[in-house]
């Protein structure tokens, strides 16, 4: 009898805890329904309609999707984004890993250098876009001056050149790799010293240790960086809008810039929604591919 009362009392407490849980997370649930779940379904619906905001949406089946597949600018925006992703992800990982390994060499003043390398990541956006427009200016830009002074090379017109506009933006993205450096550095500093000492006793030199111990242990972070880097490339907007507005000749028409134009310039809301969904599917497929192949090269410690 006593046991039974205690049991039911426990039940009341557990129920009370459960009620409190749902009460506490209710802001998130409300926000999720209103700002995420609802809009997702609306967006999926819009993507099958012709919708110009003024008149109610009209069902056109897969018309937007077939329209996109036949749209040259859509393919151009995919190409631009893919090129940028390939360049910025690959060079970004290489550069940040290189700097992190240098910073990890037991030298003094690591925290000062870490501060310097991270600083640019704090100031993204419009101001940085304007700054790089000035630095990369073809006539008075400081980059072309340095190229001329040091190598006697007549620099390209960078942002005004169809060939160089994407490399320019990749170059600019390298300025913001401080976040990755911090991540790599944190991981490097977590590698147990014993591993290196054992290898040293076995006669492994610095390069050997780097290749056989450091790099394999870094692969989870490299993998993470690839994933976020590719997703990040599909979010590039401010630079493209401010610096080139997609030009010259659509050579920097990033995916989101084209989506933005369709939605908020031409008010083709259905078409733009379809674009958003295609992007979501592309990212989903890329993520799955990366996850599948990761088991072959990403090293996870046993346990």
């Amino acid at each position, binding site marked *: 009898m006593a046991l039974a009362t205690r049991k039911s009392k426990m039940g009341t407490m557990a129920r009370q*805890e*459960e009620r*409190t849980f749902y009460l*506490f*997370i209710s*802001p*998130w649930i*409300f*926000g*999720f329904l*209103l*700002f995420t779940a609802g*809009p997702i379904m*609306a*967006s999926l619906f*819009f993507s099958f309609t012709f919708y110009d905001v003024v008149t109610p949406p009209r069902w056109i089946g897969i018309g937007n999707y077939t329209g996109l597949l036949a749209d040259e600018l859509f393919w151009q925006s995919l190409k631009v984004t893919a090129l940028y992703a390939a360049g910025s992800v690959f060079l970004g990982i290489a550069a940040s890993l290189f*700097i992190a390994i*240098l910073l990890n*060499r*037991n*030298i*003094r003043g690591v*925290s000062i*250098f870490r*501060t*310097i*390398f*991270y*600083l*640019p*990541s*704090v*100031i993204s956006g*419009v*101001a940085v876009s*304007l*700054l790089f427009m*000035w*630095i990369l200016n073809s006539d*008075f830009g*400081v980059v072309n*001056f340095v190229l001329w002074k040091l190598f006697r090379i007549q620099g390209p017109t960078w942002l005004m050149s169809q060939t160089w506009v994407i490399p320019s933006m990749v170059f600019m993205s390298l*300025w913001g790799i401080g*976040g990755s450096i*911090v*991540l790599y550095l*944190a991981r490097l*500093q977590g590698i147990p*010293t014993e591993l290196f000492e054992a290898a040293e006793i076995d006669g492994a030199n*610095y390069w050997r240790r780097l290749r056989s111990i450091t790099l394999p242990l870094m692969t989870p972070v490299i993998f993470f960086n690839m994933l*976020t880097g590719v997703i990040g490339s599909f*979010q590039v907007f401010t630079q493209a*809008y*401010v610096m080139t507005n997609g030009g010259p000749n659509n050579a920097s028409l990033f995916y989101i810039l084209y989506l933005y134009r369709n939605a*908020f310039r031409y008010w083709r*809301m259905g078409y*733009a929604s379809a674009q*958003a*969904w295609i*992007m979501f599917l592309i990212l989903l497929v890329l993520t799955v591919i990366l996850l599948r192949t990761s088991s072959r090269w990403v090293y996870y410690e046993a346990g």
Partner: protein
Amino acid sequence: MSTIDRPGVVGTTHRDAVTKPLFWTKSRSTRIGDAVTYMIIAVMSIVILFPVFWMLSTSLKENSEVFLFPPRWVPKELLWENYPKALTFLPFGLYFRNTAIVTAMCVVGQLLSSPLVAFAFARLHARGRDALFLLVLATMMLPAQVTMIPLFMLFKVAGLVDTFVPLILPNFFGGAFFIFLLRQFFLTISPELADAAKIDGCGYFQTYSRIYLPLSKPALATVAIFTFMWTWNDFMGPLIYLNREQNWTLTLGLSRFRGIYGTTPWNLLMAASLVTVLPLIVLFFFAQRYFIQGIVITGVKG
């Protein structure tokens, strides 16, 4: 303990000084390696810092000096009056005020909502909790562009386009990323503390507000700082939602600066840009460890 101690994860300055071996006690090859490392890092640091220096230098030049070739690294005369000139040409004071209001409200919203939700996920037991937490994580993967258009329509129907509400309101319902970050942090706080509080007669909310919140100041600072940084730098949100100039934020004003002027007055433009990013730079120098901590806890680069 090895002779060569490895620095810890964050904030290692004092430990560096104590445990790092002195230069002359290292082997010769290590010393050469160190020297090369220093040289490479120093050159890279200069390259990294140069754009910021160039922003400052350009902002203090006379218009004709800006277009000198070869460029003059340090202006002949420091023209501080470029700053009032740049800031009065467009109503930058107004943009600054608008940006500050939006940013402050977003920070308040996140601090009110995210920790409460995170506490529930970390410390309260309920059926369906883990599934809901997976849902929180899943929303982090969703590109914002998928919901962008319906959200715009929602705010348009509600008559809230061209107000700050669309930029601020979503922050009052918790951000998935911050919920995740804070939950991880709360899990490191010993549950015995919560049990002790319960015995002392604290309710769940009191346990949260009197024990968990005060113990989580560093994590809360990280949330505040990231919200600040993202909102302050945001361009697409204001571009989509704000129309009338009286509502513009700094990023929006800055992006229109060029078009209005005709030929680009780089010195004034750089002055305005520098003023725009200055609060972020100042914040970074004072709260650096919270930036680093946020990155390390979550693996997200900010």
